[in-house]
């Protein structure tokens, strides 16, 4: 199971994503953004960070980099893609997912262990969660406010594209408490929180049982690895 991790100038969490994929039983392959060769991979991760310094808009320039035209092409043919934080912004800027992300409601960068509710498990990246399960995943972003037009929001909600919602409180003003959405095929998913930071005992978010022991992010990568193994 080969999962590519695209590295842009300014990517930050590509190393963590590679590690998470390995812990989930997959083989991670780093791919530089100037490459166009993504033929021999089974899925792709667009990692978090500050690609191209967040100049213009978060993810805007990365979305127009050489590899992204190939990613859009392959994603439309069914390649599973997970966009994390900056990767989510890139998916929106490239038009693979609907909506946009704006600065957090309170204008502050947020870094915290965030409770989320899993809304949809018929998805490559969430299949191993249970419906309505509450999970804990670190959130660290300055522009995580999800917005979309009224009609678009209705569609996102009505078609069950909301995969994750902020639970207990809405940290950044996202419409409908949206933390993550997918496309209609359930293969392309973007989320603001960082599942790759919740994959290993001692290094994850604080949870009720023990400090730094949250591993809910690993379930997300395992979902993809297992589903693709059975495909």
């Amino acid at each position, binding site marked *: 199971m080969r999962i590519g991790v695209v590295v842009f100038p300014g990517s930050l969490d590509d190393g963590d994503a590679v590690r998470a994929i390995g812990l989930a039983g997959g083989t991670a392959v780093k791919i530089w953004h100037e490459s166009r060769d993504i033929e021999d991979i089974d899925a792709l991760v667009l990692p978090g960070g500050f690609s191209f310094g967040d100049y*213009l*808009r978060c993810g*805007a320039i990365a979305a*127009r980099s050489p590899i992204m035209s190939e990613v859009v092409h392959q994603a439309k043919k069914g390649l599973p893609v997970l966009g994390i934080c900056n990767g989510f912004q890139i998916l*929106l*800027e490239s038009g693979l997912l609907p*909506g*946009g*992300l*704006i*600065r*957090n*409601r*309170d*204008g502050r960068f947020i870094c915290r262990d965030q409770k989320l509710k899993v809304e949809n498990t018929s998805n490559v990246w969430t299949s191993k969660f249970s419906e309505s399960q509450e999970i804990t995943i670190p959130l660290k972003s300055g522009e995580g*406010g999800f*917005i*979309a*037009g009224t009609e678009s929001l209705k569609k996102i909600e009505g078609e069950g594209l909301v995969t994750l919602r902020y639970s207990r409180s809405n940290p950044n*003003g996202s419409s409908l408490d949206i933390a993550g959405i997918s496309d209609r095929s359930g293969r392309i998913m973007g989320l603001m929180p960082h599942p790759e930071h919740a994959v290993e005992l001692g290094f994850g978010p604080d949870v009720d049982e023990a400090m730094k022991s949250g591993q809910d992010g690993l379930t997300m990568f395992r979902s993809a690895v297992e589903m693709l193994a059975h495909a």
Partner: protein
Amino acid sequence: MAIVVVEVMPKKELLDPAGQAVLGALKRMTFPECKAVRVGKRFELHVEGQVSDELLSQAEEAARGLLANETIEDVVSVRVEADLA
């Protein structure tokens, strides 16, 4: 040399946290009368010679395709300004 100026603003119906932060500072400082602030962007695209209609429409296309994300922003102006420098 001419300059095509493109101005982009966050959509009116959306929250503009940057504008609100600036408003707060303005009220504390020299301009307490200020009721609202919205923060947008101005791009200056420098081109050789005269700006033809075709070039201007290319600039409009670039404004909508890259300089603005029309999900969250509006292109409010694409116009030619002479380069006085």
